[in-house]
């Protein structure tokens, strides 16, 4: 039995299509379960906070969403770079499959940040360094999606948006630190929540929801990449013979 798995077997869209189809439930259901567990810990086990009583529970969705929006952008740039350098179509498809999910997580992070900011800082929108960087990250996502949408030829669309994603990812740290500098100059450091010792249940809840979000992202991007494969490979033979295409 040949032990070495030929990883490249799955880098072809045709074989990956079937594999992704089988994998989705293995990511989707654990994501739902972990979400429920995380929320349960967050709302029933974690104690009321001395400073903010209940408002801090928004943190359990806000922090994972922010972390994910940043990482998805870097992973998207990575796939895009792979697709650009090795000309592997599947990598570029994965990049365009991840972009909408990343943008939505950036939106969730901004939305929950604003709703958390209202009770904590008294204003819907505060030019806090993290929130501002998150807003710029959302613009980078929208730029990527807009560029890809405005080019008809999929090949050029992939390669052009890949270059933009790479340039964007180089700029993310520069933007973050310049916003950090800009914020401390104008407003002084805002309340650092992570400074205070977080109750263990809070950490458990946040970590569980973070893992749940990761599984969700994998499931949803696999599902979206399958549709992209169908759209782009529609004239290939293997797609024609697909059961669901009859």
């Amino acid at each position, binding site marked *: 039995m040949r032990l070495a798995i030929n990883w490249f077997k799955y880098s072809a869209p045709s074989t990956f299509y079937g594999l992704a189809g089988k994998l989705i439930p293995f990511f989707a259901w654990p994501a739902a379960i972990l979400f429920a567990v995380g929320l349960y810990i967050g709302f029933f086990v974690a104690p009321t906070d001395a400073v903010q009583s209940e408002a801090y529970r928004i943190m359990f969705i806000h922090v994972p969403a922010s972390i994910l929006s940043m990482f998805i952008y870097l992973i998207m740039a990575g796939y895009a770079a792979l697709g650009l350098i090795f000309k592997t179509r599947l990598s570029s498809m994965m990049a365009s499959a991840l972009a909408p999910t990343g943008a939505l997580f950036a939106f969730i992070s901004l939305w929950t940040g604003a709703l958390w900011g209202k009770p904590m800082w008294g204003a819907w929108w505060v030019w806090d360094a993290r929130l501002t960087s998150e807003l710029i990250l959302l613009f980078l996502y*929208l730029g990527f999606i807009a560029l890809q949408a*405005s080019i008809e030829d999929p090949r*050029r669309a992939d*390669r052009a948006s890949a*270059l*933009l994603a790479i*340039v964007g990812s180089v700029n993310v740290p520069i933007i973050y630190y310049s916003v950090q500098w800009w914020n401390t100059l104008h407003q002084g450091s805002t309340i650092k929540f992570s400074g205070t010792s977080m109750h263990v249940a809070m950490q458990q809840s946040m970590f569980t929801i973070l893992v749940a979000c990761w599984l969700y992202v994998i499931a949803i991007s696999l599902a979206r990449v399958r549709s992209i494969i169908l759209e782009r490979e529609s004239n290939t033979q293997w797609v024609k013979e697909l059961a669901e295409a009859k």
Partner: protein
Amino acid sequence: MNKLSLFGLLGLVIRRDLLLAMRRRADVLTTLIFFVMVVSLFPLGVGPEPDMLRKMAAGVLWVAALLASMLSLPRMFSADYLDGTLEQMMLAPQSLTMMVLGKIIAHWMLSGLPLVLIAPVLGLQFDMSVQALWVLMLALLLGTPVLSMIGAIGAALTLGLRGGGVLVSLLVLPLCIPVLIFGAGAVEAVNSGMDAISNLSLLGAFLLFALVFTPFVAAQALRISME
């Protein structure tokens, strides 16, 4: 066949672009007039109190400079793209990166440099101190080339797309935010009595960083768009 050195090529491309632009002088002025108009709108919107204006002068001038340079970006490659010279340039045995650098410098001389020269005059509208005006000019001198360079990548990526103008701004503006922050920050530092050397040196760092990478990346973007 005389061997054209790299810098010879650079000079050739810059001269060519400037010559072409001078034939249609209106385009050069549109950027400048747009900048002056946008800056002059703010006092009308915000009110004439000098201390208010002085406080926001740097930000207004820098945002207007950013928008003005976005305005002329699509024209950087589109003329050559339409009449096919861009294709010839890419087929030529010369280095495309140098040609792109030449086009960036030519674009900057047409859209960035005028802004730098006229900014102090507009600064007076905002009752800025002479010292602040000097730092503003220096900051713009360092910052506007970076806007042209990053803009070149956007212009190359959106070559020949309909609605390219707006798309370029959407792609490029987020990447220019650090330049905006430290550019406006330099003037503000002077206003609040600190020296602006740290901001200006950072702007210089951005300039060198962009000078090294953007021509190559823009050349790659052109290859992608022209396939």
